[in-house]
């Protein structure tokens, strides 16, 4: 059962083609990694799926609904959540508020101006549960803009997964972290995406091969291979284009 299907998706910026006909099939429950050299268009692909950019051509199907060119909030409501490569939180709100905001829509509050948040015991408990998962429970009332970098990254993850979306997309979740921080983050990702579909862009190959069930290799806007980690490692095309040196050094 596939949850996300891209068919011949293209994206041009002016005359330059950044995504040149990507077709991809993500199965429900799988952990899928997208790798590729810098400038291959990985982040652009994420932006197309999550609605930040409109596609130039092609279709994106999520759980039976066509989502290309829909605004981000409509896509998010369908159960697709994402994180960002550059930390993207609500800096002057405290940690608790950050996560609670991310929970509001999926818990059916919509644009309500008649519910008092202080009285929504269940919502607040869920928020605390997410904070516990991402290890920020004791920072709940701390202004999120003043958190340490790794904690902000954890909050970034927390906002992405809070809504309980079926499909979680993480854009370089451990970028800029030290080795031990990254290890903790991978543990965290594994824990919080349990039973969900995960797509992630990541540069650290040890993490990619550790976490992913399948890997797609994106080179200059085209997917040159999609396969299991073992087969990707052995694929001569991939080795030629990109991987060889990295794998041996990793």
């Amino acid at each position, binding site marked *: 059962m596939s949850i996300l299907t891209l068919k011949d998706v293209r994206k041009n910026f002016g005359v330059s083609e950044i995504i040149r006909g990507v077709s991809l099939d993500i199965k429900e429950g799988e952990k899928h990694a997208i790798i590729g050299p810098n400038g291959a268009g990985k982040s652009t692909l994420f932006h197309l799926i*999550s*609605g*930040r950019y409109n596609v130039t051509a092609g279709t994106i199907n999520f759980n039976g609904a066509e989502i290309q060119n829909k*605004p*981000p*909030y409509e896509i*998010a*409501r369908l159960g697709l*959540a*994402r994180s*960002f490569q550059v930390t*993207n*939180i*609500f*800096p*002057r*709100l405290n940690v608790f*508020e950050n996560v*609670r*905001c*991310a929970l*509001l*829509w*999926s818990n059916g*509050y*919509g*644009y*309500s*101006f*008649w*519910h*008092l*948040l*202080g009285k929504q015991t269940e919502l607040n408990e869920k928020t605390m549960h997410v904070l516990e998962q991402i290890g920020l429970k004791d920072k709940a009332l701390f202004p999120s803009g003043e958190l340490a970098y790794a904690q902000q990254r954890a909050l970034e993850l927390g*906002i992405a997964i*809070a*809504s309980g979306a079926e499909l979680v997309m993480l854009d370089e979740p451990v970028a800029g972290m030290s080795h031990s921080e990254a290890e903790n983050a991978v543990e965290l990702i594994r824990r919080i995406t349990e039973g969900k579909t995960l797509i992630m862009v990541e540069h650290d190959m040890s993490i990619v091969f550790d976490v992913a069930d399948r890997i797609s290799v994106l080179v200059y806007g085209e997917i040159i291979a999609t396969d299991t980690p073992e087969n990707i490692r052995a694929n001569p095309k991939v080795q030629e284009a990109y991987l060889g040196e990295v794998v041996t050094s990793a």
Partner: protein
Amino acid sequence: MGMIKKLSVWIGYLIVLLALPQFFDSILAISIFNQMAIAIVFSLSYNMLLGQGGMLSFGHAVYFGLGGFLAVHALILIEFETVYFSILFIPLIGGVIGLLAAIFIGSFSTRKAGTIFAMISLGIGELIAATSLIFTDFFGGEAGISGDRTFGPLFFGVDFAQDLEIYYLAAIWVFIATVFMYLFTQTPAGRMANAVRENPERAEFIGYSARRVRFISFCASGLFAGIAGGLFALNYEFITEENLNAITSGRVLLMAYIGGLGYFIGPIIGAVILTLMNSLLSNYSELWMLYLGIMFILTVMFLPRGFAGFIMMHQTAWLRGNLKQLALPYLISGIPAFLFSMTCVAMIEMMQTEEQSFSFFGMQLATDAALTWIVAITIAVAAFYATRRSLPQLRDAWESANAIPASEKTES
């Protein structure tokens, strides 16, 4: 702690509102309280836009003014017995009109925040103010329109002819409006307004249309601005074009900003301070607007979060029990700073007056004597120098009062 403490704050607020005329019952005082009541609701509604929602408006008077105009028209209808209802609900008419105007204008102006929103609000404000001058039948041209509030049905024998009676009516409305505006900040829509102010893009990725969130805040803000306009109509029984043009829009921005954006109580503080200054200082000096301008610029430069922000700055020191360490340094810097500003004020007044001598806090100053000027300039320079010299000490005291105690440091 939360529930009872919060409730007691609200009860205290209501008691203060209702008890004020017991302590100050002069005609002037009641008139000031009425102005304050209007200003509080108006600037709180402005804070919903700028402080809570991040939308800088240069045309907020539109909703206040339109609400006020319709409220005066409602008074006129009551007077000529076209309709018959109690004037208790006049502010609500203003509110509904403010809301309708906001629904219409917000439907296209809330697409973006930032500079674009500010420009649209400016354009709409000028447009409506200029248009109102053309339609003299409805808006009464430069002279405005007037009504009479005493023709409605009596409310337990009260006909609202007295300003004091209007004050109690206004106080109740202020209380209701404040409660609802506070509660709004505690709802999903209110909290998402903060989130959109902080980061509209991310808000879209957690399921919220930034535009829709802004639109809701915008409408709520228009509603309460209209209520303030209705209170204005009740209090003054007339309204002119000035109440929907850039002057009034600017005034509410000043009020909310000086009070402190982002803090719920900030605009209330701003409304109280500015109304007091407006009523009291304007009796003593023709130049009070100049002082207001200077005060505003200084606030933007040195206290970007206003008076409320200045008070809240001391929270850390207070929690650590170090507030009293700051008292002496504040006095050492504050006295010369105060002396400096008062000397400047004296000199400005001396330049302004055409009399040969005028009284300044009981002192008779000869404005044409060179000696007066030399003394004044000497005091000003000395006071300025003393203030500057004392600032490093104040800064040190501030840092030590806010420093993390050694015991906490070792824990974390």
